[in-house]
């Protein structure tokens, strides 16, 4: 069985405990305004262009059968819509400015890579994390990896936005040691505006797995001007009150590090001008959350 992967990070220290290998799957059902991995949204491979590296040599223009590239007046113009990801341009770019994001990989290949660091996992209490994109969206693939890993004694985690069916969550539950579960917005209307979907199903899923004994770290992206408000903070605190088994609340403070990523794949970043969260703002958030009764809050 194959899945669409866009990166594998070995020695990943931020997606669960210990030394981990994180598999990034391509494709996500949500469309968050603040998405810091826009290249992970589409379920298809796609062309990426790094203008910093381009020497304007024109090879891509010559080699592309679909007229995607044009060099006009010293400017490299790309019509991403025409691209069929046939890779001729990538192969002919001497500067490494072009690449195709997303490649097909089998469960076996993934497990072979994961197993290479097995001893590191064992000695550090680490393991495998599937991230994305949304791992639950390539369900069969994700399920198969988790099952194999779990059965061979590797600690497993998934990082999920929570958008999937209850059946699927119940199915993976026995094979997931830790859920890094996103909680983006408390107000269902706002949630829809920010991410394209309501949070109803997501919350249902969260409650379902918690009721069934899942180990959960709640990951809360906080975006100034969007969800850093009292109502949402109360929502976070309320969740933890209701489910004391939520081990940890990880605040993912907005950072504009991924600012230019959208442009590389021909998209527009709607929050291009939003700057990163300051340390003082972060402190205020922590204060508010603790005041509302949250415990175990950290920054991820």
């Amino acid at each position, binding site marked *: 069985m194959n899945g669409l992967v866009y990166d594998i990070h070995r*020695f*990943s*220290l931020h997606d669960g405990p210990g030394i981990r290998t994180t598999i990034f799957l391509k494709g996500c059902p949500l469309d968050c305004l603040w998405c*810091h991995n826009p290249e992970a949204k589409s379920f298809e491979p796609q062309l990426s262009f790094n203008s*910093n590296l381009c020497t304007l040599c024109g090879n891509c223009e010559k080699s592309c059968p679909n007229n995607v590239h044009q060099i006009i007046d010293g400017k490299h113009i790309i019509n991403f819509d025409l691209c069929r990801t046939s890779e001729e341009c990538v192969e002919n770019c001497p500067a*490494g400015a072009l690449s195709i994001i997303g490649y097909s990989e089998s469960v076996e290949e993934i497990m072979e890579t994961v197993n290479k660091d097995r001893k590191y996992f064992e000695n*550090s209490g680490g393991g495998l994390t599937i991230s994305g994109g949304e791992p639950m969206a390539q369900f069969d693939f994700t399920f198969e990896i988790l099952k194999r890993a779990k059965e061979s004694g590797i600690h497993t985690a998934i990082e999920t936005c929570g958008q999937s069916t209850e059946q699927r969550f119940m199915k993976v539950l026995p094979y997931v040691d830790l859920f890094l579960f996103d909680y983006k917005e408390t107000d269902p209307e706002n949630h829809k505006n920010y991410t394209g979907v309501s949070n109803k199903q997501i919350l249902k899923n969260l409650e379902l797995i918690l009721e069934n004994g899942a180990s959960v770290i709640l990951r809360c*992206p906080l975006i100034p001007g969007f969800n850093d408000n009292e109502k949402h903070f109360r929502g976070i605190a309320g969740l933890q009150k209701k489910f004391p088994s939520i081990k940890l609340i990880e605040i993912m403070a907005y950072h504009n590090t991924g600012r230019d990523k959208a442009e590389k794949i021909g998209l527009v970043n709607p929050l291009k001008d939003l700057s*990163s969260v300051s340390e003082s703002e972060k402190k205020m958030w922590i204060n508010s959350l603790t005041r509302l009764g949250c415990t175990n809050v950290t920054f991820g």
Partner: protein
Amino acid sequence: MKYNFFTELKFTSAYKEYINAHPAIREAMCLKAQYPDYFDGITEGDLLAGRIQHGLIGFSPDEWGPTAFGYYCLTTEIEKHLKENDYSTEQRTEIEEILEFWSTENTSFKLRSRYTEEMKKYLPSDDWMNQSGIAFPLYRLTGGTPDFSTLLKLGIPGLRDKITKLLESADAESKDPDFYRGLLIALDVFVNVIDFYIDNVKQLLGKETGQSRISDLEKLLNVLEAVKISKPRTFHEALQLFWLYTFLGDVRNYGRMDMYMGDFLASDIDNGIITEEEALRLVQSLWKLMVDRHTVVHNRVIIGGRGRRNEKNADRFAMLALEASRTVLAIEPQLSLRIYKGMNPEVYEKALDVIGEGRTFPILYNDDVNIGSVVKAFEFNKLDAEQYVPYGCGEYIIEHESFGTPSGVINLLKALEVTLHNGIDPMTGKEAGLALGDFNSFKSFGDLWNAYNKQVEHFVRLMAEQEVLEYKVAGETAPFLFMSMLYGECLDSGKGMFSGGIKYLGGTLETYGNTNTSDSLLAIKKLVYESNSVPKGELLQALDSDFEGYELLRKKLLDVPKYGNDNNEADNMVSKVHEHVCTYVREQKDRVGLHSYLVVNINNSANTLMGHSTSASADGRKSCMSMNNGNNPTSGYDKNGVTAMLNSLVKPRTDIHAGAVQNLKFSKNMFREKRDILKSLLQTYFDNGGAQAMITVVDKDDLRSAMKEPEKYQHIFVRVGGFSARFVELARDIQEDILTRTLY
């Protein structure tokens, strides 16, 4: 080094006077002429006596300049000195006569003049730092680590007694009495040197007014007077005797210091003779003196490890040594910690603290791998192998039993380059190796592989022969008295180290460009022979033009898997290249008559210097760029994170060579806040067969360099606000932002 007309003259006269005397007597008289003159006075703050400024003519086993070992004369420097200074015509004539005399009397000249025709043809130059070539001889007898325990146990009087007895029975046992006579004169020289420093301290005391310095100097005076007449009784005396001896023997690597110093330290502290703080001050002073010795690639101090007779006391010294390295901010000594399962965890934690502060020391050696490797590679038994010590840039020997100077360097990448050009070095256009056919005639990758092997083997044979010849000439020239009095079976047999006095006389050959060569071979194999996507002629043109106009081809070469990413294909090629050269080198020992002859894959600046004269290579490396360092991947070619790199590092065999080194880089944050992760990472690496690690802690400067040369810093991942990125792929202003934040 300095020029001292009077001493150089005195030295030359002594040599001439004893030119036909027994080599031991000649050496002893020459030592007497050069010491204590070449010693330098005590400097403010020194708690131990012993500084040196060797002269431009002299005697030493180790090198005092390129090709300057044994009896040496640095002609060019003397000529330069003559030009810049006033000397009378008479003096000038005298100096010119001396230069004329030494031009044929210096040891490396004698060695070179005995090269075979083949050696002369293929090893035409000794200037490996500046000239292009596949292999170069080195002229030095370095890395010897004598029996310091015995030195400290017997002291000068004890050694004198022992040698005197041996001299008395020499004739009866048909041993060489002159060898012992030479040794006794050498001990007189030792005493002369102590006297020199006694005078020096007395003079300083006459001028000194600061109370605390006076007290330090008075202590030093007592110590010097004591070691002159008796064996060392205190830690301070032991350090002093040891330190002066290292100059006399020109010993630049100090072996298992914790073992031979541990008991002195423990007994002094336990008996209230010295406090911990005073002991630390002494070691700090020693460390500073080592720095000022400017040996660059030596000054190895070994602590830790299996097979220490006094483990507890030794560990007390080890802790002190670590603290000294933490507090003396310097690039030397090269403190090296041998680690093993069951070692004192306090020592290991302390070592990580020191490394975490960015000291790059201690270098870690994994006994649980290395002892077994030494048993196999050198064919030693386990007990002997436990006494292995790394010296210099990382070669192993068995302390005071074996010797294995690296007497040559071989540039494997140049061997491939010359092979691809049918014997011609494209850098010079001259013949530089065997002509084994042009690239086109290699119909399969196997043909190319065989030709490359032949090329390397040809030079390995020559280097092995050169090593033996070097020992032969050295043995005929001198017994190297100071080292021989504490080495192998020299004393009992009445023979110098290189005249049959040690059982385990071995050699080593430094290899460079191992990784580049392997990555290049794999690229050629895949693109030229397997996918036929690159024609041979085009590849050669691309290499010859340093990829100008061949950027796309270079990109293809770069895209072929590289060592350091846990990619089996790439790592297997490295293992194959490694195994070939290591095995072939190792096989030479029986042919040339050495106890062992082994590859060392080590770290110094040779990868850069020899890189300067090596053309573009098929791994995508540009002309004149550095080659890879030791067993490391080429900088910037490892892109899969640290576990992948470590997994690659453990693949080449460790039991067929005499040492290999690897550099690892971590962030300070990792050491401070993720110590548990770091420890498990290192533990896994060592469990997996990691033999050695030199750990640099990366700080902001690395990020700055990454902004300047992104291609070399692919491996730096940064973590900000919930997602990871390769630092070099971020926009400039974001990089700058991160620079002001923490790494990882």
